[in-house]
């Protein structure tokens, strides 16, 4: 059988094209290719070369429209035993091709060509084309007789024309030879034989039979020559005769042959395809041809030779003629029948050709699976031959089938098919299913195994590697661990024979998927700059009064991909997950990000994956140029070959696994992913030009600052520009919890250092005050959360426009950045406040002269022994020290409203040892207001009053500071506000407001007596002073009593020990507002000792203020005011003293 047969084959003149002399295969192919373009020579073009010596036997030669067809047999072929039967099988011409520069001796070339031509006895025209001859060769005029045709070096077009001319010459020569052959007298006489005719012993009967058949066969052969000469009408005439004769002699084989020739002549003559009538005719005749070939089957020599191959060829010819989609059914029937014949074919190469042809025809028909099936049959036949050439052919044929079986190598897939799927995560079900149409895993594995086998046998390590990689990657769940190991060995063996660094489009293991893009560390946050705003960082925050805005939310959902911004020159990291689902240790020699945009340097790393394991690794790299970056996958160097693994493929695979369409999810079977498919989209990444980069560091170590509650400390934070661009703008702010614990930030230090050049460093002070621990923080079971610390935010940016860049990008500001420096504060429980109480006490005072110069107070409480301290009140703070250090507590009061030079009073420090409790007293005397004003006590404006009270309490509290010192450098302040407020709340009026009346006693000055001397048995003149602290006149009845140590009234009663002169009780006096009245009286003490003087008054017609101050409930109730007790120490003469003791 012959490959590539068609009905027209009968009309083609075969010309062997042979290389002559030394010629490179590549050049030979090129020249042969040039020849191939001249496979059809119009009869009209060869008239110049055609010399009609005698009358042409081809009377109906269509000189206008006809043509001669050539079939170039490149490399030649051995003579066929069927040459007599079908003249087109003869090699009628030989063309040698010689490349002059490599074989300059034209003489030897001519000899070699002559030798080569001897093998083609049937050839009638022989030419040797000599390409690129030198001048010497051109000068040699002997060439013509040596059948050498020189093609002088010229441009392509000239050479083409030259070649065409030579081919026309050859065509003319062949035509003349055919004429000669037909006109040869003996052409009718020779016995034409085929291998089908018995060769060995010609019995007499058969000789007679042969003689009978001779005429018919001769007619058929003449017809063949007519066809070759391009004269179908002549051919048809001869074939008709031949048919008649063959039918008469029962020569079915030649009958069929003649009929076949007749069909060819018919088609040549009509030259109309797709004519249904002709098609029907062809079909009818060919069916008859097939039937007659079958009929000619002779049982005798069936073992040796059979017309079957002609029958099959005829079937294929008809199938090829009909091969159109509309006639698919008929073609399929023909091809099925042809395939059935394969079993009976004797010659293995015939079977090979048959299967090849069937596969090709199915392919033409669009039946790719059928084509693949027969291609695989071809490959199996090749593989049976067990030599490397056949293995190469098998491999190539199998490679053709991979598309139908959907196991094709990535290299053979056009680039754009992959991109239509998968950009957006939304893939409908149909699409997903069609993605995994490759579910014929059994077939696919068989095909890949066969490719691997043939590639190994053919010695093509790359193809073997690729097949093994596809097999392992796609079908690892169906391969036993030992099989997987075998494949791994095959991969390694193939890689050994490949040059290092070989790329293969088909990835093997591991499976690589994108895990995540780690966000910028908070030190390197990139903030979009809003142009034209001083607070450029605020632009990105959602605007409007609502925390949640549906519009911004909508924006976020439409842009599903988050955008990443990378900075030139700053290393970035990408997390990918690798999985090795196979049963061997997988050594990934190197893996790095594959970036096609060319502005990224990625750093390879080496990974080892144990069997059935997955691993998340960090791949890093540095962006080198601005612009978008796309990361479609990773470049993996594994099993000795470099491959590119696309994330998209694995994503699709995982999607398929989710739908139950893929055999296995490699990540899940490695125990990763927790059964949930994570779909990490590759965000759109843009690289921006270099930005400044601030790095912060706490001076004295980055550890947490350990502070006791309320402790105040200054820390220094050093900020350095680690980038390559100067910082031109910077703004410091606070965020996070406990922001109030940062008392001050020395941001001016940073601002004054701007622009901060690369490498420059600036230190800013930050004053911290430790906050109070809450109740939750106090139970030590939980570790301190870092989140409770405040954070220092520094928004900074480089120059607004990069001077090196062209101004095209002026609209886009380079982004700014944010440095987040957590102020790590660890607050320890310090001195703790237990409770606060308000204490009141009355301290004894002496009756005496009131010194007026005591107004200047240099201490918190001036104990004027003569003035007394009425209603002195103390705030008692109870503090405990649960820590293991000693605290010293000092109270200071800021009294700026008393004096202009805001003085503070410090009291001696109270030391509180560890695990002890101490009380600290804070006198509140000085906070009394000078005037009893109505404003506090107006009842009709409650809320106002409340607010006033609260304000004054706050004012009061803010003046009191309880500071503590511990050790050498810990100091702080107690937060006592709340406690004090609670303690003061109830009795604030008593603390703040003065009594309406102030009483005091004094001795009336006596010239010769020292102050405070009161002698017994002597009249002592005294004065009581009553001061009105209100703004209204107060009329009252004043009374004075005197008590002895036992508390008995000494003035009235039976045993009064004191005599008096002047009024002591029931004195009606009026005190003008804010003034003082004096009332003089004298006492005469009979007994030395201590006496207490008390002044009291009942106010007449008290007004509202007074009532409110006295907290009287009913308006009729008399308002009674009482002064503090005064002591009179009654002394005896010289030795005797009157000592009065107060026992209030």
């Amino acid at each position, binding site marked *: 059988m012959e490959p590539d047969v068609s009905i027209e084959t009968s009309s083609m003149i075969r010309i062997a094209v042979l290389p002559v002399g030394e010629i490179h295969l590549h050049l030979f192919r090129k020249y042969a290719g040039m020849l191939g373009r001249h496979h059809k020579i119009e009869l009209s073009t060869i008239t110049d070369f055609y010399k009609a010596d005698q009358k042409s036997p081809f009377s109906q030669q269509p000189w206008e429209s006809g043509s001669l067809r050539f079939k170039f047999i490149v490399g030649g072929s051995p003579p066929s035993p069927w040459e007599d039967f079908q003249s087109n099988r003869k090699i009628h011409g030989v063309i040698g091709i010689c490349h002059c520069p490599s074989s300059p001796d034209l003489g030897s070339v001519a000899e070699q060509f002559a030798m080569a031509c001897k093998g083609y006895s049937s050839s009638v025209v022989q030419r040797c084309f000599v390409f690129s001859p030198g001048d010497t060769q051109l000068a040699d005029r002997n060439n013509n007789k040596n059948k050498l045709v020189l093609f002088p070096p010229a441009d392509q077009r000239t050479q083409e024309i030259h070649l065409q001319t030579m081919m026309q010459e050859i065509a003319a020569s062949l035509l003349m030879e055919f004429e000669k052959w037909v006109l040869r007298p003996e052409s009718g006489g020779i016995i034409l034989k085929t291998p089908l005719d018995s060769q060995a012993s010609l019995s007499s009967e058969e000789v007679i039979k042969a003689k009978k058949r001779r005429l018919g066969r001769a007619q058929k052969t003449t017809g063949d020559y007519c066809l070759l000469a391009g004269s179908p009408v002549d051919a048809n005439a001869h074939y008709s005769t031949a048919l008649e004769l063959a039918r008469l002699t029962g020569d079915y084989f030649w009958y069929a042959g003649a009929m076949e020739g007749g069909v060819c002549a018919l088609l040549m003559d009509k030259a109309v395809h797709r004519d249904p009538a002709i098609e029907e005719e062809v079909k009818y005749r060919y069916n008859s041809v097939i039937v007659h070939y079958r009929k000619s089957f002779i049982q005798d020599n069936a073992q040796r030779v059979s017309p079957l191959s002609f029958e099959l060829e005829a079937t294929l010819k008809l199938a090829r003629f009909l091969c159109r989609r509309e006639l698919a059914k008929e073609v399929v029937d023909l091809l099925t029948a042809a395939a059935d014949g394969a079993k009976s074919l004797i010659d293995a190469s015939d079977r090979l050709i048959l299967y090849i042809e069937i596969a090709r025809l199915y392919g033409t028909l669009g039946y790719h*699976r059928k084509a693949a*099936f027969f291609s695989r049959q071809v490959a199996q036949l090749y593989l049976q031959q067990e030599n490397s050439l056949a293995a190469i052919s098998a491999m190539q044929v199998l490679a053709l089938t991979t598309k139908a079986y959907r196991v094709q190598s990535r290299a053979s897939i056009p680039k754009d098919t992959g991109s239509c799927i998968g950009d957006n995560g939304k893939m409908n079900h149909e699409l997903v299913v069609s993605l*995994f*149409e490759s579910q014929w895993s059994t077939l696919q594995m068989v095909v890949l195994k066969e490719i691997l086998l043939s590639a190994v046998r053919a010695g093509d390590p790359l193809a073997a590697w690729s097949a093994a990689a596809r097999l392992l990657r796609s079908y690892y769940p169906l391969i036993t661990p030992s099989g997987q190991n075998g494949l791994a060995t095959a991969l390694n063996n193939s890689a050994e024979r490949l040059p290092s660094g070989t790329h293969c489009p088909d990835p093997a293991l591991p499976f690589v998927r994108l895990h995540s893009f780690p966000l910028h560390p908070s030190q390197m946050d990139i903030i979009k700059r809003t142009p034209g705003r001083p607070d450029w960082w605020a632009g990105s925050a959602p605007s409007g009064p609502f925390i949640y805005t549906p519009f911004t939310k909508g924006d976020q959902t439409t842009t599903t991909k988050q955008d990443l911004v990378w900075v030139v020159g700053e290393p970035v990291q990408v997390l990918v997950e690798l999985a090795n689902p196979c049963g061997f240790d997988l050594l990934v020699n190197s893996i790095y990000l594959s970036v096609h945009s060319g502005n990224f340097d990625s750093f390879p790393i080496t990974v080892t994956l144990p069997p059935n394991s997955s691993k998340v690794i960090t791949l890093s790299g540095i962006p080198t140029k601005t612009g978008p970056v796309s990361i479609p996958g990773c470049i993996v160097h594994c099993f000795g070959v470099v491959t590119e693994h696309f994330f998209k493929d694995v994503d699709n695979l995982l999607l398929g696994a989710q739908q139950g369409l893929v055999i296995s999810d490699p990540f899940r079977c490695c125990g990763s992913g927790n059964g949930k498919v994570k779909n990490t989209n590759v965000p759109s990444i843009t690289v921006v030009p270099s930005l400044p980069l601030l790095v912060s560091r706490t001076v004295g170590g980055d550890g947490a600052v350990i502070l006791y509650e309320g402790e105040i400390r200054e820390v220094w934070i050093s900020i350095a520009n680690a980038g390559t661009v100067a910082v031109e703008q910077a703004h410091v702010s606070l965020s996070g919890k406990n922001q109030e614990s940062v008392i001050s930030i020395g941001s001016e230090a940073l601002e004054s250092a701007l622009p901060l050049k690369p490498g420059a460093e600036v230190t800013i002070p930050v004053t911290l005050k430790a906050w109070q621990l809450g109740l939750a923080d106090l139970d030590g079971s939980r570790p301190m959360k870092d989140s409770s610390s405040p954070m220092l935010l520094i928004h900074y940016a480089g120059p607004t426009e990069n001077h090196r860049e062209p101004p095209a990008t002026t609209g886009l500001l380079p982004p700014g950045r944010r440095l987040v420096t957590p102020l790590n504060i660890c607050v320890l429980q310090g001195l703790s406040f237990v409770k606060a109480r308000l204490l009141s006490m009355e301290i004894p005072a002496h009756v005496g002269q009131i010194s007026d110069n005591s107004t200047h107070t240099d201490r918190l409480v001036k104990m004027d022994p003569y003035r007394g301290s009425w209603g002195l009140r103390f705030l008692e703070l109870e503090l405990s020290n649960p820590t293991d250090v000693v605290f010293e507590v000092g109270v200071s009061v800021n009294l700026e409203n008393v004096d202009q030079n805001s003085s503070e009073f410090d009291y001696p420090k109270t030391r509180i040892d560890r695990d002890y409790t101490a009380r600290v007293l804070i006198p509140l005397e000085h906070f009394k207001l000078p005037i009893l004003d109505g404003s506090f006590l107006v009842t009709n404006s409650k809320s106002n009053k409340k607010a006033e009270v609260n304000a004054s309490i706050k004012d009061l509290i803010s003046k009191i500071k309880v500071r503590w010192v511990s050790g050498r450098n810990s100091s702080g302040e107690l937060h006592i506000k709340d406690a004090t407020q609670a303690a003061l709340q109830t009795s604030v009026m008593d603390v703040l407001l003065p009594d309406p009346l102030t009483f005091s006693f004094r001795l009336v000055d006596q010239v010769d007596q020292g102050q405070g001397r009161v002698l017994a048995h002597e009249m002592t003149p005294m004065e009581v002073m009553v001061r009105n602290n209100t703004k209204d006149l107060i009329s009252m009845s004043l009374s004075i009593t005197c008590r002895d140590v036992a508390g008995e009234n000494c003035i009235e009663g039976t045993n009064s020990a004191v005599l008096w002169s002047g009024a002591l009780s029931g004195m009606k006096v009026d005190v003008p507002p804010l003034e003082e009245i004096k009332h003089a009286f004298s006492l005469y003490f009979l007994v030395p000792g201590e006496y207490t003087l008390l002044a009291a008054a009942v106010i007449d017609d008290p007004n509202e203020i007074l009532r409110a101050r006295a907290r009287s409930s009913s308006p009729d109730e008399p308002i009674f005011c009482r002064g503090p007790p005064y002591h009179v120490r009654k002394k005896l003469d010289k030795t005797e003293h009157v000592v009065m003791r107060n026992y209030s």
Partner: protein
Amino acid sequence: MASTACFMIISKNDIPIYEAEVGSAPKKEEAAHQHQFILHAALDVVQDLAWTTSAMFLKSIDRFNDLVVSVYVTAVTHTRLMLLHDSRNDDGIKSFFQEVHELYIKILLNPLYLPGSRVTSSHFDTKVRALARKYL
């Protein structure tokens, strides 16, 4: 029972969703591959032929060597039940297909079954093999 028979169900996406060697001949892996290859190739013929007839049962649409392919195309889902066989028992094959079709409809009615995915029910497998013994 036929000595060689390979039964496959092919979804409308040309994916095999069920396959069973139901022949009585001793099983050989090589042969099973070959059977699947033949069935796979026959899909090309089925895809054209299915539209030329209203019948669901297409008998002997393709053959290779002495193995014949018969196909039953379901109407709605265009699922193809394909049988590769060496016997010529058309009636038996037709009955076999009809009963398997019923079984397949039961599988489809399972709300947890995603149409077009693999049929993994062991009950289905048992039933199909029983039907094969009965009819083929």
